[in-house]
């Protein structure tokens, strides 16, 4: 599945980038450490008409806005049946997940369907039904819906639920693969989302408090004392984040830029969510601040490196050499496309699949307790939800 746009780089550039990223420790073109993200500026609550919104921009001008809007919707019911039935599911395999979650809960009557969340992604210059955009939307929504926990938060009573519209808009042209940016912005927007406080009880028509200041957060903050009193589930989980991780050789690199992605051997989109439920027990046990990270989904991103043109070794280059240049041209007219063995300093697109051990290491690195994801989640929680 083609998922990232093609970047035009010369074979010499690709060879240089690959060589510098394969070093231990790798030297990234922008000088970051392998686990370092690009510095970003973030703010929330920028859209007054939305229930929650966020904006993130990178220093290079890449900028994304996410708005979350909610409306009350009547839950479709089937006559004579206790269970609620909806047909339009975003993902085909969602039903099992929801049922699993429900079986475990036992007593929890709340249930949700993935059709309660509608997510649209807009990338400038790309059509809505472009495969890249559709793939991005699928990745972002599957991270949110995978465990069926999120949609339960939208349950009001047996007859009504919240319908959530999440609009993700990339404002600038996609200078790099926008997945991490969109995911982080969506995370922030969901963190800042507030739904009006419910005043009615039971299954009657919902009636809400006018006071916006009293509206609870969709994801209650752990620091506030009122976290447990809200209708949230006891796990107090956070919205998921999807990170782009790539590997060159044995080096694992987070948040790759466009040039770096162009020489990746493997690129993965890993969706994780942090739960703080057991954090208190484990903090004492390990003496290390950390949270339980739950892996939600993994997608391989087809790195653009596979489509890059190979370099030509000097030995095979018709335009290389002095006097015999003309003679060499006669001998090898198709020298550029010829297959060559690995020569140092000559770019060769990666072939074959990813090594299993590298994939394992990638996922391990993401899920590491107290690791990169932990700090990213901490930093995101530190953003002022104005």
């Amino acid at each position, binding site marked *: 599945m083609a998922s990232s746009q093609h970047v035009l780089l010369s074979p010499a550039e690709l060879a240089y980038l690959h060589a510098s990223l394969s070093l231990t420790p790798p*030297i990234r073109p922008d*000088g*970051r450490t392998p686990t370092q993200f*690009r510095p970003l500026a*973030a703010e929330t609550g920028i859209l007054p008409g939305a229930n929650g919104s966020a904006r993130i921009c990178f220093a*290079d001008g890449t900028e994304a806005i996410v708005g979350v809007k909610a409306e009350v919707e009547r839950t479709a019911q089937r006559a004579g049946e206790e269970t609620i039935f909806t047909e339009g599911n975003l993902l085909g395999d969602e039903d099992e997940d929801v049922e699993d979650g429900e079986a475990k809960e036992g007593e929890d009557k709340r249930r949700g369907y993935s059709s309660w969340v509608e997510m649209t992604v807009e990338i400038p210059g790309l059509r809505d039904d472009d495969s890249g955009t559709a793939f991005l939307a699928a990745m972002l929504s599957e991270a949110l819906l995978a465990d069926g926990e999120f949609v339960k938060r939208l349950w009001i009573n047996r007859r009504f639920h919240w319908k959530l519209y999440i609009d993700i808009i990339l404002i600038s042209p996609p200078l790099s693969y926008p997945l991490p940016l969109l995911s982080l912005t969506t995370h922030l927007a969901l963190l800042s989302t507030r739904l009006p406080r419910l005043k009615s009880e039971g299954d009657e028509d919902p009636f809400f408090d006018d006071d916006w200041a009293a509206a609870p957060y969709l994801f209650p903050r752990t620091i506030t004392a009122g976290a447990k009193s809200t209708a949230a589930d006891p796990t107090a989980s956070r919205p998921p984040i999807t990170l782009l991780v790539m590997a060159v050789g044995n080096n694992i690199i987070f948040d790759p830029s466009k040039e770096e992605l162009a020489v990746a051997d493997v690129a993965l989109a890993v969706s994780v969510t942090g739960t703080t439920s057991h954090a208190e027990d484990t903090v004492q046990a390990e003496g290390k601040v950390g949270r339980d990270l739950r892996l939600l989904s993994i997608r391989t991103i087809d790195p653009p490196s596979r489509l890059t043109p190979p370099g030509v070794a000097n030995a095979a*280059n018709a335009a290389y050499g002095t006097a015999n*240049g003309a003679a060499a041209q006669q001998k090898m007219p198709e020298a550029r496309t010829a297959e060559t063995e690995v020569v140092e300093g*000559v770019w060769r697109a990666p072939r074959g699949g990813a090594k299993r051990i590298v994939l394992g290491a990638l996922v391990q690195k993401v899920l590491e307790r107290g690791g990169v994801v932990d700090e990213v989640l901490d930093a995101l929680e530190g953003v002022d939800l104005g």
Partner: protein
Amino acid sequence: MPITILTPKPSRPINDREEDVSDAFSISDSESGGVDLDGDLPMTSRPHKRVRITNTTSSSASGGDIVTPGELITDDPQWMRGHGTYVTPGTPSIISSVAGTISRTNKLLSVRPLRARYTPEVGDLVVGRIVEVQAKRWRVDVGSTQLAALPLSAINLPGGILRKRTETDELQIRTFFAEGDLLVAEVQQLFGDGGAVLHTRSLKYGKLRNGVFVAVSGMGGGGGVVRSRRQVWTMDAANGGGQIDVVLGVNGYVWISKHVETPEAENKAAGITNMEESVSTTMYSSQNDRIEVETMREIARLRGVITALVENGLRVDEDMLVRGYHEAVEMAMVSAEGADDIYLGGERGEQLAAALTGQ
């Protein structure tokens, strides 16, 4: 700390130094019996978006103010229109045709664009990327509004052979340059519509390798590459990095690479024809030489300096870059990670820019 999240800065008014010069002119102008400029620019057509510093000087009313395309700058007939503006026939009003800041020189009103594409001029040294290969020429992206053309007849043949380009050359056009290849060239000729024709008929020009590319947006807004005395130079890197070549294309495309001694440098005695011959051996190579880790690190540091300069709205030229590089080396020395620390994004970049501007 793998991630830094900052709160967005309030947008600051755009002001550049040249503005002050023109202001100084107009001050003296108005003092010597001219009219008060505040009254002359009734910019009533738009709301006052930000608080203006109107009280400091009489002329700063429009200094640093942004106009957008189609916006009325003035309808007073005493002004002449300059770059970035247009007049509608029959009316004296001057209207902006680009988004930028108003600048005035005596009675000439012009708008300096915030961000502009490169406008080629004959003799410019440019770095370009091949995007299209045609039968007898290449189309090169030089960051201009149009692709530049590089005819097959405007390149050196390998070995420096001087002959007419034949059909064989046309068939093998991709052995010289293929799609994606980077090259340094000179603008030879301009078409009437602003399109450029390039040539690489010099030992200095040709395919680029052994380094990294960074695109810096064009002129305007104070930042970017500016035309200067030297666009290409070799500098000594710190920390045992050897020598590094920097090519600052006038079009804002920059190439930073390891300095490779050309074979002819060793035997200077060689005649002018021989020299061409020996240099041309590596002219179309796409194979990188062996590059030491230290060199790679310093190349990345230099790239970081350029991006930091651009992000902080400073000009990119030899003087600035060399000073910035030395400053960056100093900064790395005192940082926690030591001399190997090459990161210059975010706050580090601001520190660097502050050190360079002496603030």
